[in-house]
């Protein structure tokens, strides 16, 4: 049995790189340090995979050779007038570079999953900018951590223990101790009140102010965790303070906080149901911290207002920098969606929704973004890699995708691959193939290969390179 250390987990934007993997008979048999999601990937990858390329003939997907699949794919792309190449967020940067070259060669649209996730964040960043950092800065310095519209406990399980409140830094201790203290305090209070009830023979009620901040906040030296969300998530349960906002009201709350931070008066008593007193306390908390961080997720990007919500959040944090050190970071989902944005940007100047049909890169989300193009029925072929749009896109968009010739490159069987005309089973990046990926804070890491892939499962980079070669051959001849 082989033991491989410092393996990087290819699941979420946390890109934890301290994983230990045990390999036996070319199979991962055990892992250490992963969260439940990482563990599931390492131990269960490829269980449902069909390790041979497929081509649809007479309505049915039939096994084919790699060469046939490459040829058919190249034919589809060269015959198409306006193909889309979509996905990219769960593959390596090396593959993305080839993908961009291919999209440019066929004059198509290339887009990644930001288009349905943090695209609005990117649009707002292009308007406002973004005061941000790498995650280590937070481990060392952040004493106020806010997760807004994001639930790391479920989506980035090790985030809090590796990078924020439960991590140990040079200037800030872990908040783990105070969390245990508070937990014990709650238990003691529960027991004491139960005893009191037995003695007094009646139920005790404690008037609880729904929105009040805990009294210890101002005096507490240790790290504080604040969660803002529409429901009490698992993360909210371990937070020092949870602020419940009504759905689709984040924009007003963020702008109200901005006003307070800029020393403006709020002429109302409450904003979106939250008393102004609470917002004032929250603003005080933000101003008086040493270094604060606001993480935000799809709760902001995909609720009413979308990019305006992110605009308000970015502007709030920017304004806070007049008073203290405050940073903001989007919680990126896929392990290399950041890499997709990064590679797209350095090669084309634009982070997603890039159109090559005029021979140079054009960027106009809404016009050049994939979901919109599909809904308008404007494209006539598709290549989907490392993502599953049939599951995730609006039905009208998915329909256009499957009504036209579709090439799918994916290690797994997915609803998208089941509707495809050509399917390439690829190797899992980070397990069966090497590659570079970018963490949510833009730190690049090299994912390792720990086992050999099955014979017909090539790395994405190689599949795309072969398709590109064949496309060029067809064009020349």
């Amino acid at each position, binding site marked *: 049995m082989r033991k491989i*250390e*410092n393996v*990087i987990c290819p699941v979420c934007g946390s890109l934890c*790189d*301290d994983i230990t993997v045990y390999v036996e008979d070319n199979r991962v048999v055990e892992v250490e340090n992963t969260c439940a999601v990482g563990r599931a990937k390492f131990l269960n990858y490829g269980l449902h995979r069909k390790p041979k390329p497929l081509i649809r003939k007479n309505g049915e997907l039939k096994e084919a050779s790699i060469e046939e699949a490459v040829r058919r794919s190249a034919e589809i792309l060269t015959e198409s007038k306006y193909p889309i190449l979509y996905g990219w967020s769960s593959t390596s*940067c090396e593959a993305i*570079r080839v993908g961009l*070259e291919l999209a*440019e060669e066929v004059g198509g649209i290339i887009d990644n999953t930001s288009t349905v996730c943090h695209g609005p964040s*990117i649009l707002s*960043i*292009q*308007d*406002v*900018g*973004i*005061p*941000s*950092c*790498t*995650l*280590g*800065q937070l*481990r*060392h*310095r952040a004493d106020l951590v806010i997760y807004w519209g994001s639930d790391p406990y479920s989506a980035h399980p090790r985030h809090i223990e*590796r*990078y924020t409140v439960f991590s*140990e830094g*040079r*200037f800030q201790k872990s908040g783990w101790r105070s969390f245990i203290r508070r937990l014990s305090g709650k238990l003691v209070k529960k027991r004491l009140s139960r005893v009191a009830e037995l003695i007094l023979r009646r139920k005790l009620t404690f008037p609880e102010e729904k929105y009040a901040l805990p009294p210890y906040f101002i005096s507490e030296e240790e790290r504080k965790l604040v969660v803002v969300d529409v429901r009490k998530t698992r993360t909210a349960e371990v937070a020092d303070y949870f602020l419940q906002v009504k759905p689709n009201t984040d924009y007003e709350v963020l702008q109200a906080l901005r006003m307070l931070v800029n020393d403006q008066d709020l002429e109302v008593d409450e904003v979106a149901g939250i008393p102004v007193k609470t917002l004032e306390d929250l603003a005080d908390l933000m101003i008086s911290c*040493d*270094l604060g961080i606001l993480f935000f997720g799809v709760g902001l990007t995909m609720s009413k207002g979308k990019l305006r919500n992110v605009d308000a959040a970015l502007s709030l944090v*920017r304004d806070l*920098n007049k008073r*203290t*050190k405050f*940073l903001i970071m989007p919680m990126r989902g896929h392990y290399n969606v950041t890499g997709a*944005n*990064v*590679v797209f*940007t*350095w*090669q*084309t*100047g*634009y*982070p997603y929704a890039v159109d*090559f049909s005029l*021979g*140079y*890169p054009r*960027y106009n989300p809404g016009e050049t973004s994939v979901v919109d193009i599909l809904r308008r029925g404007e494209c006539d072929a598709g290549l989907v890699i490392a993502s599953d749009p049939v599951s995730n896109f609006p039905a009208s968009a998915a329909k256009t995708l499957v009504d036209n010739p579709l090439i799918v490159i994916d290690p797994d069987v997915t609803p998208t691959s089941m509707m495809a005309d050509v399917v390439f089973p690829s190797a899992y990046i980070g397990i069966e193939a090497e590659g*570079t990926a*970018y963490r949510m804070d*833009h*730190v*690049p*890491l*090299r994912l390792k290969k720990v086992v050999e892939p099955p014979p017909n499962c090539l790395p994405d980079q190689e599949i795309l390179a072969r398709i590109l070669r064949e496309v060029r051959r067809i064009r020349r001849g």
Partner: protein
Amino acid sequence: MALLIRNGYVYDPMNGIDGEKMDILVEGGKIVDKLKSAEYEVIDASGMIVMPGGVDIHSHIAGSEVNAGRLLRPEDHAKDVELKTEITRSGVGYSVPSTFTTGYRYAKMGYTTVMNPSMPPLEAKHTHEELCDTPIIDKATYPLLGDWWFVLEYLRDGKIEECALHVAWMLYATKGYAIKIVNPGGLEAWGFGRNVRDIDDPVPYFNVTPREIIRGLCKVNKLLHLPHTIHVHTNNLGKPGNYETTLQTMKCVEDLSSGDKPCIHITHCQFSAFKGVDWREFYSGAEDIAKYVNFHKHVTMDMGQVIFTDTTTMTADGPFQYILHELTGNKWVNHDVETETSSGIVPFRYRRRSYVHSIQWCIGLELALLIRNPWRIFLTTDHPNAGPFTSYPQVIGWLISRKAREETLSKLNKRARETALLPSIDREYSLYEVAIATRAGQARALGLKDKGHLGVGGDADIAIYDVDPRKIGPSTQYDEYVKAFSKAAYTIKEGEIVVRNGEVVKVLDGKTYWVKVSSNSEYEVSEDMKRRFTEYWTVQFDNYPVSEAYLKRSKPVQVESEV
């Protein structure tokens, strides 16, 4: 491929050749004195200038900071596009071009070597990935070390040799070329939103001063025998009155120089040559700086010349970039890198109407014209901070022609025009001096032995410009020279013709230079550092270094160190 470049007017300052009509012979990617091959291509360079390929000591072209700038400025890209051709990839310009466009545009100007000056070590892989997608030119990059925790701690404790060993490791791990220092101490202070006031203001929590950091790294540089000197972006950059900090910075390593060799490079000095107390009482400090440089041999610098245009500022100087955001109200990106450094990006427009910008424009040229020795001051615009690199020919025009300067001056802010020193400076650069400022001087300062000259054994990186120095006077017909330098008649890289008449005709991959230090003691990192590594960074020690696989063509430069 063998070449015979015939009858050109050759400017090769490293070999003392000043416009002599002579032939240049190229074979096997090198300059030779005799062609072995019977078949060779002849380039008729009659009536043309032949120079070594351009060398740029400081230009932000790759890495996380640059890419954040690209992301921030879709409006900048939309106005300047490059179509795909049979041999070139498509792309976008203007102030922060995409990577392919960057390589092509440098080659079109006859440049063949470019140094990327700001690489956060933790994100080094990103810099190298982008450099690999930057075609044609040879490149290198400098890791930011002036605020690295290990540097701060070792220098605070006076452990110069330990520091040197770890710097050597860092150059190896990041495939870097030189020690870059930006606002030393200030970037660590910016971790909590602060800055340092001058070179004796101690860094919060670390109890070490910028003076100690600069001196310490200067000593480290000498111990390691690195090809370039420490490359310094001074404290207080962009602040009125900062010329004094710059003088102090240069003075603080005066005693560390040996003989005539420089031991410090002050980069984009224009931004560090402000005299006065605020934006109204604002003057040029170039004269004071030039006076110092003229009497001391240990300093080299580059201009950081302002161009009147809409551009993008990007530096590792987080606190300064924040100030720029407050000043302009423009959108602002900040990216602090744990344990190491920071960065900031803010779009910026230099306006002729502005008194301050007009003086800034004067400062860069005053530095170049008042510093007598052309081997000490080089042509840059700190691309893209003071202007895009595609403006270099314009700067050449200002250097060679007083008339060109007067023409621009006539359109500037009146108060600046009437009070600045520049209008009274007569000096005009000769083409020999231009060759030093854009090629030979930069290559020599960088310690690149095969670059910046046309002597036998040098790399066959050659630029040929279609303007006849015997017929067309630079002083009066400067626009002919600006045109010629914008569009090389021929650019030759490693003996291959890559540009003809300003168009890319062949694409190849350039080399990435980096320094490999062989030391007397093991510079393997100690167990103690490995343990502290996981405490300091959020990545594992094994996942930190950049393997040579990230460099398409790796060119290690071997140096022998004293530790």
